[in-house]
């Protein structure tokens, strides 16, 4: 199905949304504005003519120095209609977009990975922590302005220090616990 055909189905169901077909060599690509993303996704999932029940993946690409800088890419799959669709959302350098976890539960980790790698914020995500990189990592490695070869100082931790008094107090507390 062509991108324009999918847009024609979507137009009456998501009134007033500015959808834009994109160039592609494999399957239809549609640009969606970030503020209408969740609405559009719900229609894509539930419309009987489309039924995009599976979100295959979420990823992004950094097109520095172009502005808006990022494109977040959603690959949708409709098994019943044998159809694939690529949704793209343009996100500026400090912008954010809503999470689609309410539409597809499996979006949680891929969105977390996109935040981890690109620093693109997903509003109302609920669990936007580091996924692949260590928790104390600085920067977002997949950005184009992130240096390729860097060295990070080895992380060291203070050895655990317990004073004599604390040590005795711990032992005493354990003994009291066991006695009860």
């Amino acid at each position, binding site marked *: 199905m062509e991108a324009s055909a999918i847009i024609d189905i979507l137009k009456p169901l998501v009134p007033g949304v500015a959808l834009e077909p994109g*160039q*592609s*060599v*494999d*399957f239809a690509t549609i640009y969606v504005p970030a503020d209408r993303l969740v609405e559009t996704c719900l229609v894509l999932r539930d419309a009987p003519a489309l039924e995009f*029940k*599976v*979100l*295959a*993946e979420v*990823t992004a*690409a*950094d097109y520095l120095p172009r502005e808006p800088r990022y494109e977040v*890419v959603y*690959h949708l*799959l409709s*098994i019943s209609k*044998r159809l*694939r669709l*690529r949704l793209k959302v343009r996100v500026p350098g400090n912008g954010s977009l809503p999470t689609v976890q309410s539409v*597809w*539960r*499996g*979006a*949680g*980790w*891929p969105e977390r*990975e996109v935040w981890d790698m690109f620093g693109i914020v997903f509003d109302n995500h609920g669990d936007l922590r*580091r*996924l*692949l*990189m*260590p928790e104390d990592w600085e920067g977002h*490695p*997949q950005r184009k302005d992130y240096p*390729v070869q860097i060295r990070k100082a080895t992380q060291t931790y203070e050895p655990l220090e317990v004073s004599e008094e604390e040590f005795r107090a711990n032992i005493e507390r354990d003994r009291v616990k066991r006695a*009860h």
Partner: protein
Amino acid sequence: MAELRTETMTVNMGPQHPSTHGVLRLVLELDGEVIQSVMPTIGYLHTGIEKTAEQKKWQQVIPLVERMDYLAAQSNSLAYALSVEKLLGLTMPQRVNDIRVLIAELQRLASHLIWLGTHAMEIGAVSMLFYAIRERELLLNINELIAGFRFFPSYIRIGGLREDLPRGFHETVNEFLDRFPTKMDEFERLLTKNDIFRRRTEGVGVVTLENAYQWGLLGPIARGAGSDYDVRKYFPYCGYETYDFVVPTATEGDVYARYRVRIAEMRQSINICRQAIKRISPTGVWACDDTRVVPPPKDKVYTEMEALIQHFLIYSQGFTVPAGDCYVPIEGPRGEHGCYIVSDGSNRPWRVKMRAPSFMAIQAIPSIVQGGLIADLVAVIGSSDVVMGDCDR
């Protein structure tokens, strides 16, 4: 009398636990033996392959992506090669497609053998691992024969294959295909009706079809829950539509259903391999005829000036790929293995992203095992067939 302690216990499983398939860490909250919640932590095997790929030329990425899903190396490189070829607009000769199908199916067998061995071992059938690894050894020998490398052959290249098939290839593959079905019967005699195995797997870790789709689980997990989605049938590539095979499914959605689906899949793979090896002539073309991408044959490089220049250009500057983006999915052993590439029109990829089936599977594990026993968790991880290299990339 002292009150009964009712608080839950937090247990750290992994990242170096034998049943977590590498370096997956699970923080379990337990009430006795019952799992209250699971929090998976991944990233221990993150090697930044996608970032590294952006610094390499297009053809140099093939060995890199093979190291992502290290148990199904050639399904990574096949997905990558297919998507670059799609952007370049190349079509492959029939023989190349047939060899690729054969390699992909042998790779599926090799990957499923490791799954079978480790999954059965974790459930208690330890000897299964040795039987499975022994057969996989023969498949690694085939890899060694075609490329000289057992794990990451890099035999599939952009624009075709590395070189022609070696002498004795057909005999080796046929020998394996004749031997393997009897071994499959042996495996099934050990497990399929094994009472202990069935008690550990039946009704355990049930995934409904609705949930599988919600969590983005495709491949054997979804097919064990009643889906018939297989990329080879729905979006055929490499001429899979010309092969005669069925997609095995089950409806129960439990660990045992996934086991049956994968076992049936292996038998189908043998079937496809037999058809493919009959079609492949011992010698013939091994690449398309696009001189931008495929280096000229060595004898011409030594005798013809143009060929020497072309050879030099490909290996020094590389080739350019038209600007655009493209996603090509293939049916890997673990499910839909897709490669999303973005090109800016230069000789290096702008972005390479693999859709990792293990990544989605690990994300869904907490929802599958909640309320079950720790022993079931081991069975569920085994039946999800996760590979941490695939998950963390």
